[in-house]
Each structure stands twice: as C-alpha cells, then as structure tokens.
C-alpha cells in the first residue's frame, strides 16, 4: 500500500504542468579497458576486461519546495582470464525520488531497482537473473518549539527467476522517533519493527524484530560553570520472533567460543590456540591443510557452555578454488567434558567450500557437547592452504527471544578555585537475554583530582590523581587502577617548548596488585633558527608484572629534524630507537634494540609540481634489516593535463618493487581521458611479476 502511495505521488508530480520549474539533465559515461598479466616462474596468466557504465539523470524543481529526480544507469562488464571462459555481467539500475522541504518538515520517497543478468548494450549476460527492489520514505519535522518527529519506511525485495526460486526474500522496516528538549533535559523515544521473510520453497520463514528504546539526557552547570553535571539513561528492548514454516527452514545462531584448540596429530588433548577465535579471518593461525601440510590435523573449539551444534565453519587465508576436484574431507568429533576423550560422530562429513566467504562449511547431525573438533583426512591440492578461524553454529529453537539493555552515564565536575578540579564519572551497562536468562552487568566509577600551579614566569605544572573501579558480574573480584600523574611545562621563548610528564599506575584485581608501571616523557621542541625545527621525545617506561612475575624496562628516543633549505626545498630526518630489557621469573635477562631512520625530501619549485623522496631503514634486535625507498612526482602540466608517478622498493626477506604512472587529461568540459600503468615485481622464494594497463574514458554533462 505504501509503495503504491509513493508511485501515485510521483506520477502526479510528473503530470503537473502548473508551475514553472527548472530542469536539470545530467549524464555520465565511463568506459574502462584493462589489460594485465601475472608471471610466476614460467607460468603467465593474462587478464583483460572492458567495463562500460552509462547514466542519465533528470532533476526537476516542481516548486521551490518540491523537487523530483530520476536516473537510470546501465553497466556491462566483459572479463577474460587465462584458463577460464570469457565472463559477461550486466546491471540495470533505474531510480526515482521525490523530495519536499519547507519550514515545517522534510519528506522524501523513492524507488530503486537493481537488475542483474539482463541482456543490455547488445551483451548477453553469463549470470543468472536477479532482481532487487528498494522502496523508502522518510518524514522529519523541523519545529524547534515542539517535539521533533521522524518516520521511516524501508522495503527491500530480492528474487531470482529460477523455478523453484533459490532466492526470494523480502524485508520491511518501520521506524518512528520522537525527540524533545525542554530546558536542560532531552527526551527521545523510538520504536521500530523489522520483518524479514523468506519465500523459497521448503525454506519459508519469517523473522520479526521489534525494538523499543527510550533515552533521557541532561546537562547542567552552575555557579558560572564551576560545577558541571551531565548524564543519560538509556533503555532498549528488542524482541525477536522467528517462525519457520518450510520443512527445511531454520535459523542459525553462532555459538559462543571459549577457546580455540589445535594439535597436529593425536587422539588426546588439543592445545589452546587463540588465533583460531580472534575474529581475524584473514590472517592464518599457522595450520596448513595444503599439499605441503599434513592430514589428520585436529582443529577445534571449546564452547562457553554445552550447546547443540550442527555446522562448523573453517575459514582459510587463500580462496580454495579446487575443492570440487580435490575436496578436503573432514571427520567430526566431540568431547563432553575434558578435551581428552573424543568421540567420533561423523566420518567424511558433508562439506562444501563457499568461495565468496573463503570457508569450508561442514554439516552433521545436531549434537550437544562443550568441545568439538574436525580432522582433515585429506589435503587440499594447493601447495599452501592456511586455516584462519573456526566458528560453530546451531539452530535456534526458541521462537521468541528478548534482549534488554540499560545504560547509565553520570558525570560531575567541580572547580572550586581556578587551579583545582575534581571530576567523577559513573557508567553502568546491563544486558539481559531471554529465554536463557543470561545477564551481564559492567559498572565503572572514575574519580580524578587535579591541581595546577604557576611555579615561575616560565614554568607551569599540574598534578593529578585518578582512581578507576570496575565491577563485572561475571568476575568475582573487582578491578581497580590508581594513576598518579605529574606534568611540567616550560616555554621560556617563543621558539622553545619543553615539557616533562611522569606517570605511575597500579592496576589491582581485588586487593592484589597485578602490575606497576612508571613512565616518563621529556619533550623538547625548538626552532633553532628560521627554517630549522628540532623536536626530541625521550621516554622511559618500567613495568613490573607481579603475576608472572617479570620486569620490563623500555627506553625510547624519537627525534625529528626539519630543515627548510630554500623556499622550495624541505628535508626531514627522523630517528627512533628503543631498547627493551626484560627480566623473567627465573631472573633471565633478555634485551632487544630496534631502530628506525627515515629521511624525507620535498621539493616544490612551483605550485604545479612537486617531487618527494623518502628512505627508511629499520633494524631489529635480531639483526634483521628492512628498507623502504619511495619516489613520487606530481605535476600539473597544464590546466588540462596532470601526471602522477610513484616508485617504491621494499627490501626485507623479499624484495618488492612497485611502479605506477597515472596521466589524466581533461579533453574538454565533458570528456576526461585517463591512462594508468602499474607494474610490480616480487622476489621471495619465487619471482612474481605483474603488469597492468588501464585506460579510462569518462564523460559528464
């Protein structure tokens, strides 16, 4: 009903002829041709692509308060790679919008269509057809005297043309917000309903989430801002209802992991491996299931609690495109209590590799346990295929779940005299979920007191004490941290600044001090003469960890010398070095020293041209050295022609060289031609070279 209202709106607008209006017609076109190659050892792969995008838009001001805009765009891409067939993809995306703005409200409504797989521009698409439609409408009042009201409606529909459908979903969002400020108080209330429906045969389901939210805020100061206070209380409740109608319909919930587990081979306990659950699906956890790795590797996880699991996802660093021919096979095990005794629940479990997400999906009969592991009985055909993350999923059974969250913040400050300040801050965050009755509560108190003093005409100081208390309901002991800070500031000359900061902190768990850290920073910045700036930071940091127990002492020096040699030439030399000494519980001392030197040269003889060069050398304590050498030229040759060139060499365990050049030419007010050339060379165990030419012709009117 709502979307038809919007259509009627727009039809009436386009038919109205009564008012004079300005029309704006705009358009753009872009053609990108790209050709490249990648050479590794004796293998060369080529890539060619042609991408065309065209867009035509109309904007019509019906009155000074109402405007209508419409545009239609089309995109077609052809890609050809060595070893694969030519791929053609197409997109068609028309869009309409009506905007109304006046002194009382802002409103707009619009429709957008995204068609994939249609035959456009004489090209037959290789993709199957998929249609996505979006409708939305927004209404916001502008009154300052009365509560501000906002309404939003969004509908999204996606479906394919297969019989039966593989994709057929619809989502709707209704949201209403009221906001009112009365003197120093602000009130906000919001309610939204979000419904997602799946119409695919046998997978029919509906998920509805209703969210209610309320917030009260205040900010008030007294006594000429000597006493300040502010705070807010926020309450949110979200009720989610899931209804599965189809025989295969289900909702997957990710299970909370307590620990990642791994052992190379064996039938006993697995070792704690945090990298498997660190959330980083891009970086490997050091587990190789490629042909240079091993079979029978045990990859698993311990859950926070015993739960039912029916799917395990194993993410990989590389995209494994050969699973269809050389599938990696998995056995699935569980352990009820101890990560020692494992029971086999499925041999050669159903598994597929989802390429877009770079993960294996291993499915098995839903089973409850606290520990799960998968063992690869075969290896991938790739030389290396590194595992990065493990996730476990089970089906949600409860149709209705509620999540309530309360958040309180209170802040107060008093400044009885100009040189003294005391602040107090309280935060509490409480969260409850039903039906599993899980509650978490985090409370923190923070109090600080600071005193400032002018010790001398050229010397100022301040001292601060801060105490932080944290309570977490999931932990038995509270945490607290005492921090003492002392700071001196001196600016005897306009060209000389210096400061000394000293900091000491001691975090505790319960009454037991966990560690003590003392650090100091000396900062000097001086303009030695015109065009010569020097800045030096010296930092000492001493940490005593009373739990492990270890002592760490870090000394760091950062210096930065900047020389303006001429009006056009500037150079900068930076030097950083740090020494770290660690003494462990057995009194064994280890030291490490790292240093970095970097030089930058910047030459700008005229405003239309600059040249930049930088060289960086890093040395680590193990004697490893790495360097980065970079050159950059940017030249606005004429008002229509611009050139940019970059060259970079990285040397460490491998040598990597990158060169790129970019020439942009404004042919006219409408046309722009751009040519880019990129080349890279990487020498490690193997030599890899890539080269790409790109030409872009674009037009805008």
């Amino acid at each position, binding site marked *: 009903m709502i979307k038809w209202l919007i259509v009627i*709106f727009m039809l009436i607008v386009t038919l109205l002829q009564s008012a004079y209006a300005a029309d704006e017609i*705009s358009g753009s076109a872009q053609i990108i041709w790209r050709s490249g190659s990648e050479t590794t050892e004796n293998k060369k792969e080529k890539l060619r692509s042609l991408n065309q995008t065209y867009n035509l838009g109309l904007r019509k001001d019906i009155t000074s308060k109402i405007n209508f805009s419409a545009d239609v*765009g089309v995109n077609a891409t052809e890609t050809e790679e060595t070893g694969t067939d030519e791929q053609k993809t197409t997109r068609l995306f028309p869009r309409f919008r009506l905007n109304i703005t006046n002194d009382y409200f802002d409103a707009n409504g619009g429709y957008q269509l995204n068609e994939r797989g249609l035959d456009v521009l004489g090209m037959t698409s290789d993709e199957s057809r998929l249609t996505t439609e979006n409708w939305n409408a927004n209404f916001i009042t502008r009154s300052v005297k009365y509560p501000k009201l*906002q309404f939003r409606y969004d509908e999204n529909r996606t479906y394919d043309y297969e019989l039966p459908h593989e994709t057929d979903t619809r989502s709707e969002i209704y949201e209403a917000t009221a906001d009112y400020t009365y003197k120093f108080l602000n009130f906000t209330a919001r309610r939204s309903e979000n419904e997602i429906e799946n119409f695919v045969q046998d997978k029919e389901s509906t998920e509805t989430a209703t969210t209610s939210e309320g917030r009260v805020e205040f900010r008030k100061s007294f006594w000429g801002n000597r006493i300040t206070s502010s705070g807010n209380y*926020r309450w949110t409740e979200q009720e989610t209802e899931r209804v599965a109608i189809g025989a295969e319909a289900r909702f997957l919930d990710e299970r909370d992991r307590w620990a990642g587990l791994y052992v190379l081979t064996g039938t006993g306990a697995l070792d704690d491996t945090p990298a498997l659950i*660190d959330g980083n699906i891009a970086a490997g956890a050091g587990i190789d299931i490629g042909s240079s790795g091993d079979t029978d590797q045990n990859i698993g996880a311990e859950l926070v609690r015993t739960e039912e699991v029916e799917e395990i996802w194993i993410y990989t660093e590389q995209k494994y495109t050969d699973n269809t021919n050389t599938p990696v096979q998995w056995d699935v095990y569980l352990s009820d209590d101890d990560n020692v005794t494992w029971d086999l629940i499925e041999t050669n479990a159903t598994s597929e590799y989802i390429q877009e997400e770079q993960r294996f999906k291993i499915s098995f009969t839903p089973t409850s346990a606290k520990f799960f592991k998968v063992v690869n009985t075969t290896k991938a055909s790739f030389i290396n295929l590194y595992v990065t993350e493990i996730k476990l999923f089970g089906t949600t059974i409860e149709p209705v779940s509620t999540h309530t969250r309360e958040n309180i913040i209170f802040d107060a400050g008093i400044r009885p005299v100009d040189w003294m300040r005391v602040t107090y801050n309280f935060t509490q*965050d409480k969260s409850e979920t039903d039906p599993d009755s899980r509650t978490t509560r985090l409370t*923190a108190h923070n109090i600080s007191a600071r005193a400032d003093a002018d010790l001398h005409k050229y010397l100022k100081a301040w001292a601060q004490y801060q105490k932080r208390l944290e309570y977490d309901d999931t932990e038995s002991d509270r945490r607290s941290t005492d921090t003492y800070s002392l700071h001196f500031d001196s600016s005897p000359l306009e060209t000389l600044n210096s400061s000394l900061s000293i900091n000491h902190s001691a975090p505790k768990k319960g009454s037991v001090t966990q560690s003590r850290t003392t650090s100091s920073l000396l*900062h000097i910045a001086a303009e030695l003469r015109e065009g010569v700036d020097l800045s030096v930071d010296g930092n000492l940091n001493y940490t005593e960890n009373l739990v492990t127990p270890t002592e760490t002492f870090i000394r760091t020096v950062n210096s930065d010398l900047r020389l303006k040699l001429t009006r056009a030439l500037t150079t900068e030399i930076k030097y950083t070095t740090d020494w770290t000494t660690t003494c462990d519980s057995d009194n064994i001392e280890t030291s490490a020293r790292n240093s970095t030197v970097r030089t930058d040269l910047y030459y700008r003889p005229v405003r239309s041209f600059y040249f930049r060069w930088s060289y960086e050398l890093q040395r680590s304590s193990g004697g490893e050295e790495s360097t980065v050498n970079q050159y950059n030229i940017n030249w606005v040759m004429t008002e229509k022609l611009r050139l940019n060139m970059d060259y970079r060499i990285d040397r460490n365990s491998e040598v990597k060289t990158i060169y790129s050049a970019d020439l942009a030419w*404004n042919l006219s007010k409408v046309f722009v031609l751009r040519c880019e050339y990129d080349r890279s060379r990487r020498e490690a165990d193997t030599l890899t070279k890539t080269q790409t030419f790109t030409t872009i012709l674009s037009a805008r009117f």
Partner: protein
Amino acid sequence: MMKRFVLLILTALSMSFFVSCVYNSGVKEPIYSDAGQVFVYLSCYNEPSLDITFTISGMSFMDKNGTWYDVNPEPLVINSKKLSCSQIKLKEFYLPAGKYERLKWTISEASYNRGNKKFSLALPETAHNRGNGELFLDIDFNVFYRESLCLFVEWDADNSIADNYLFKPVLTVKPQQLEIKNILAYISNEDSDCVTVIDRQEDSVVGTIAVGEAPRGIAASSDGTEIYVANSGSNSISVIDTSVNRVIDTIDNFGYAPEEFALSWDGNTLYVTNPDSNNVSAIDVASNLVIDRIDVGKNPTGIVADKDRRKLYVSNTDSLTISVIDMDTRSVERTLTVSSNPRYLALCDDRLYVANERVNDIYVIEIPAYTIKTINVGFRPQWLVCGLTNRVYAASATDNEVSFLHTTLNMVTRSIPVGDSPAGMGVDAIRRKLYVVNNLSGDVSVIDVTGERVKKTIPVGERPHGIALIAE
C-alpha cells in the same frame, strides 16, 4: 499499529501536497529565488605602517541595470594594524543572479592614530548621507544562480589619507579565481551550504563552492582529483573536481542523510555513514553510483578505513557498539560493545582511538586483537585525528581546546585553546600545521605543531564542520 501510523503520515503528506498544488494552480510565481551566494573578504595589501581605523556601516551592489541591492552588514570597525596581513570576512549574503558593476561602502567614521593621539579624518561627502562618507568602486563580476563566489577587497592603508586630512581608502576588488596549482584545503560550512577553499601556503581563503544543503562530512579521493561532500540536508553527496573546483556530480543517497566518509583500500569505493537509517552506503567512485548498503548499529557516525587489513570501523553512537566491516565482502564481521557513546574515530598504527561524546574517556582498541582499553583524558573528546611525533590530537567542544595525547604514555601533554566548539581537524605533515575547524565561531585555527600554538585564525562560512586536505 506501527504500519498504520506510518501510513497515516504518508497519507497526510499526500493530501498536503494536493492542497498546495491546488492552491498554486494557474498562478505563475517565481517559484524559487534565482540568487547566488557572495562572500566579501578584506585584507591589507602590505604590512601597513599607518594606524588607521574606520567603520563600515553599509554596503551595496549595483547591477548592470543600475539597480542597487543593500546587504547591510553590522557596523564593522576596521583597523589597519589589527588587520595586518590577515584576512577578515566582512559579510556573507545572497544577490540575484546577474552582472554587477559597482560597489558602495558607507563609512560612518575614520581616524588616524599616532602615538597615544587619535586624529579624526574627513569623510568623502555625499548629498544623501550627511555625516557619512560613501565610497564607490568599479567592479566586474557575475553572480550565478545556486553558485557561490568570494570577492577579495585589498586595502592599501598607507596611501589612504589624502591631503593629510581626507580619508580616501585605496581599494582593489577581485573575484575569486581558484587555481588548481595551489595547495588547498576544503572546509564544509553546514549553515552556509557551501565549501570554503583555503590556500595552505598563505593560510587564506581563496574561494567558495556551493554544494547541497547542510554539508557536513568532507573527504578527498586518494589521488586528490575529487572532493566528496556529504549534504545531510539534501540527502546527497556533491562531487567537486579539484582541477576546475566546481561540483561535477551530485550523488543521490536514496533518501538517507549522509554524515562521514572513508575510502576503500584501493580508492575505488567510497563508504558513507547514514545516521538516520542505521546503515553505510558503498559508492563506486568511478561511476558515482551507490552499489551497496550495509546495515550496522543505530546512529552510525564516525567511520575510518584500515587499508592494510581491508576493514572499516564504524561507531554506532546510539547502540554503543563499533562495527567491523570487511571491505571485500561488504559485510559486518564483528561488533564490539562499549559502555558509552562512541562517536569519532582515528586509526593510528595498529590502534583505533574512539572518542566518547558523553564521558571523559577515549577507548583505545588494539587491532587485530580487538582488546579495549579506556583512558580518562579529563575532558569530553569529540573529534580525533592522528598527529605527528606519536601524538593523537583530540578536540573538545565543551572546553574549546585541542589536546595532544601521547600514544605511548596515554597521557595529554599539551592543551591549546582554539575557537568556539572545535570540530573537524586536518594535518599538513609537510608544513607541520594542524587545521582545526571551529563550528560555532565560524573560523579555522591554524596550529603550528612544533611550537604547539595557534599561528593564525581564518574566517570561513557559518557552522563549519569538516575539513579535507589534498594529500602530497
């Protein structure tokens, strides 16, 4: 219930539209004003040696048809020594589109100071304004509908006294000419609906560019050829071509008010937060078309790109969370929960700094471990930017200060007072300058990072919000 409510509002909207159309039908009215925006800046031609003070009490422009348009600024007292080598904004106003040929200033008093004595100067006489002087200047500029321009008036103070008693200021008026060769910064002015362009070598305004309504977030493309401006009032994104310094495209954001930007690791996709609709739009930079929308938490405000890891970090101010988005799959891969309202972000080395707008804390999140540490900084931080020499610069709108936070010590080493309600910041690493946009005082503070003091203040438009610097 909710559906019926929204339906009711949309129906009311349709009816109000019908009513307004019926009322207006058959009447040909000037539906929209054909005005363009003008800024007038005044500066001294050279460092003046004479100390002259005068008051401008009126300003008018005459078009080619001889019609005068008064812009009537508040009476402004101008002093040559205070003006020195800086630039002041006399007035920001609108004029009907057309060609203009004359400028008139009404001067109510003028004096010359020498030592501790003040000598009044005679004003040019006119028949219509007894007691006030009128100054006429020949000018030549065009005002275009919906466009913005600056007029720069240069005053040669040392040659402004004739015959030892008559105040006859020597003035030159030039319209803006934005050269692409300049080293520029772009500032979005929320209440002026325009972008101010600043020359970073001279630290002075060189022009303005009209954009959409209520521009807030602003960002430069990685190659510096385009500037993107988020028009939160007109739900669109203006694209400025820096080679011609004009808007070449306007991207419709599908009804959502855009806020802040981040560019993808390859520079091909622009991500923009939409606070009112709780999502992030992904825009293809080549075609300027919205290609995706990613649902995040409530009221997403700040966004920052981690180009090495190909991730985006989005602060959801009202749901007290931070969304981590994978740029390759364009989906949320994890959500971090915090205990107060996160707003603006800065990613420095492997640490994400998050400003909390309601408490005196900054969250420091180690990447990729995602461990969260809280630092109490003693003020309410809003905007953050990665600085030089291991510093993070934090602006506090409540204290009107910018503080330098040392990233190893996690301690504030310097606080510098700036203008009223500091907002967006930008760092010029080559020239060692920090630009701080002051939202309520309508100016930009230029801080010398080495000397840790404000060097200059540049007046811009009304309620400036963000700043984008072309990288070198």
